[in-house]
């Protein structure tokens, strides 16, 4: 299976992300319930939402593909007593997560692995749940990814994918090569293939998975990014101390994202099960 290099952005010093993300450094959409909700509250609520979509009751075996700075593995290990493997190609994230797991006495339940999902090898024991929060956008071979995820799930196991999508196939065709999309792909991540939800659903169906739920989280992501932008503006000097121009680049990225929601892009959560 083909892999894509995403290290350009995620290999930045973890401290950089501490400057604009919530305390868990969860670099994906939160869920807000009231106007007074903070970013930190929204991110905790989102992880409980993911747990709900996975049907967690406690003690499950989970795989988090593209685990970032470990917010999901650490949270599910702590709150739901899950045994979680986090996988990410960005090496700088691993020591950070292991340190936190050790501090919180979670080392026996949190296992962090380096590598790409497409080429990673797994043992025979299957998972109760697999999560991909904002990581499938970096994987070129959708069919291969879904098929491999299905093979790693036990019967009845759940797959949760949340991703930013083009609003429909027409927007994909029209805006994939436009300035805003190119800026995000080339200047921020180095790679990325945003698709319409229909592509994600089709690939899940083709892999033999059953679609259980689709949630529209677009408004929640708009607010999450607005909160990140507020933080990035307030800490611009510190961001630029890590890399000159970084604050402006990040703010430009956030502005593009938030201008596009609903017009050219959407953010969905897709939950599937390995079942007939």
């Amino acid at each position, binding site marked *: 299976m083909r892999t894509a290099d995403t290290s350009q952005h995620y290999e930045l010093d973890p401290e950089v992300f501490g400057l604009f993300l919530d305390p868990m450094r969860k670099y994906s959409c939160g869920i807000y319930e009231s106007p007074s909700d903070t970013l930190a509250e929204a991110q905790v609520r989102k992880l409980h939402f993911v747990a709900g979509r996975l049907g967690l009751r406690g003690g499950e075996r989970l795989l988090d593909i593209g685990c970032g700075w470990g917010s999901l593995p650490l949270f599910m290990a702590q709150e739901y007593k899950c045994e979680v493997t986090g996988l990410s190609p960005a090496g700088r994230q691993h020591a950070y997560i292991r340190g936190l797991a050790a501090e919180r006495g979670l080392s026996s339940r949190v296992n962090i692995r380096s590598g790409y999902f497409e080429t990673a090898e797994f043992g025979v024991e299957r998972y109760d749940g697999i999560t991909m929060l904002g990581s499938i956008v970096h994987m070129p071979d959708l069919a291969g990814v879904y098929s491999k995820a299905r093979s790693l799930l036990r019967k009845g196991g759940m797959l949760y994918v949340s991703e930013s999508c083009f609003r429909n196939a027409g927007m994909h065709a*029209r805006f994939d090569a*436009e*300035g*805003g999309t190119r800026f995000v792909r080339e200047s921020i991540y180095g790679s990325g293939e945003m698709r319409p939800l229909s592509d994600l659903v089709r690939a899940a169906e083709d892999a033999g998975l059953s679609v259980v739920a689709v949630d529209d989280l677009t408004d929640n992501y708009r607010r999450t990014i607005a909160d990140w932008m507020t933080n990035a503006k307030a800490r611009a000097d510190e961001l630029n101390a890590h890399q000159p121009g970084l604050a402006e680049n990040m703010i430009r990225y956030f*502005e*593009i994202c*938030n*201008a*596009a929601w*609903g*017009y*050219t892009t959407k953010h969905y959560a897709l939950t599937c099960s390995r079942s007939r």
Partner: protein
Amino acid sequence: MTTLETLTEITAEAFGVPAAELSPDRDLRGIDGVDSVKVLRAIARIEQRYDVELEDSDVFAVKTLGDLVTLIEKAQ
């Protein structure tokens, strides 16, 4: 306030330029520092203000404030 005045005010704020720089027939994307992202942001604010939803084909075809006035008046 006329529709044009309201749209000019919202757009000037979204672009971060003085309202005086915006004439009804000026190509919005030709203004220094204005790109499709800023145009979209202005349109989003205008849709919100008037509680209307413009057609996609219209949203992406808007060139001038005059175009927007026509679309908003038609949509109301």
